[in-house]
């Protein structure tokens, strides 16, 4: 008998590199629990960071879409679809920036960047602010009830739990 549930897992990834096989673990985890899982694929932030052309973004997105559907994700949404209007990007970042403290942000930086603070620009603040907004939209717009994450993103997700209502997550071994 199928498990009746309103639960939906969410998995957030950004398209820095081509899809990797560790992604399969998350779909498998959801499948074992008879729980649907949606993918939130961030194509906007990598597009800005790596100065991608629309063509390059579209090609990367196509790779991700095919991979994730084949891996067993129930749906795949790109952040460019979630946040259609690019005009509001600064507003999104600024909204999140009001919640995150400076000390919290420092703790979220990778150690090598923390140690090299003099070389770290304010643009580093965009990442956690943007991700909070993406994760929040995943809950409010895509109905995600619990995010799945690996240990690498644990600090961010703990921070998200402090700042986003109804934010839940489970950590799985990658």
């Amino acid at each position, binding site marked *: 008998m199928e498990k009746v549930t309103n639960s939906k897992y969410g998995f957030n990834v950004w398209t820095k590199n081509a899809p990797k096989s560790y992604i399969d673990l998350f779909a498998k985890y959801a499948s074992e629990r008879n729980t649907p899982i949606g993918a939130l694929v961030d194509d906007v932030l990598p597009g*800005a960071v790596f100065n991608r052309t629309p063509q390059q973004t579209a090609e990367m997105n196509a790779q991700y879409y095919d991979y994730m559907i084949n891996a067993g994700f129930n749906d795949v949404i790109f952040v460019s679809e979630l946040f259609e209007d690019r005009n509001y*990007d600064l*507003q999104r970042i600024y909204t999140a920036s009001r919640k995150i403290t400076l000390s919290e942000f420092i703790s979220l930086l990778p150690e090598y960047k923390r140690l090299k603070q003099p070389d*770290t620009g304010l643009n580093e*603040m965009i990442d956690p602010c943007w991700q909070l907004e993406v994760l929040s939209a995943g809950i409010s717009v895509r109905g995600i009830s619990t995010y799945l994450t690996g240990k690498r993103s644990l600090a961010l997700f703990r921070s998200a739990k402090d700042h986003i209502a109804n934010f839940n997550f489970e950590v799985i071994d990658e």
Partner: protein
Amino acid sequence: MEFEKNYYTRNTESLQGISSDDLIALIKPKTEKAIGIDNIKERIDNGEKLNVKFGTDPTGPDLHLGHIVPIRVLDIFSRAGHNIDLIFGDFTAKVGDPTGRGDERPLLTDEKIAENMSTFRNQVDRYFDTTRDNVHIHQNSQWLGKMALASVFDYLQAINLSQAMQRDDFRSRAQNGKAVSLAEVMYGALMGIDSTHLMSDVEIGGVDQLLNFQQARDIQRSQGQRAEDIVMTPIIEGTSGDGRKMSKSYGNYIPVRADDTEIFGKFMSIPDTLIVPYVKAFAPVYEQDLPRIIAAVHESPMEMKKQLATYMVATASGSRENGLAARENFERLFSERKVSLDDAVTLPNIGNLSDILLSSGTFKSKSELRRLAEQGGIKVDGSKINPEDLNSPVTNQSLITVGKRKAFNVDGKSDE
């Protein structure tokens, strides 16, 4: 010295064609610190029309005279014919107050922002004509509210995180265990985006904004623009003369919307040590005028204070006659009634007017005060009160007279 007459007249003189030396001489008395003032002079000498920027926050509509100091500098540039960009920072007001101060302020609607902007203009128009053709009003949500991630990235990478954290206020708050939000860290960068968008050549603001201005300059340079020069005005001391800045919360302020009697009274209540700083802040004095003014203050501080107070009433009301009338009114209060300001008993600012007067021990009851008010015997800063006013709070430094001989000066933290 006909200080009030001369400087009141100078308020509205056109400064078109003013030499760079004279412009700088007019600005310097109001300048606590500047970056690139030589550049300003050089560019004026080259005949350039400068883009001069001033930013303000549309969340709080009530200004005090401390807010007017940079406005007076803006007025100088405006009368000299330069392009003035007055920016209302509604982007952060709509999204949220970055300083927070620990509280979440309610987000402002477009209607409320428009109302606050109108109120702001009505208040500063006494000191700076915002309707002149060379004055342009902006709301920075016009560009900040339409900014894609790629652009944000580009701007923010120009500011070094360590530099942004150098602020003394951030460090002292961190040491005291108080959080600083990323929004506050980002604020200077947002100012820089404003400056870049407007291609600002000069920015005016308080000296407390120094680090924000430095970030703004970095942002401009990163976009291939010449960094704006900065004129920073002092944070004016409050009327109590105890070293604290003018502030509503300290009760040592003069509201821009104060009436003539209140303005005159409050200026008369300042210690002599504040006369010259206030002259420099509010009157259009050239640097070369200062020795003469300082000598006049030294010789006759009371007369110079009256001149300054007369000038301020005239400027605030737009009428020299009003300034002269305020002085006449004040002098009548003291000379005819034989009450001297020095004779006024200082009372703590507690509760309402009735509470304050009862604390003197001079009056037996609230009923007695009510009878005196009904007879017109109680005045606050020269204006008769109604009996109902006995239940109202009193602003700091107010002068209360009861009958012909009793005078009280209200001091201490306002309950407002």
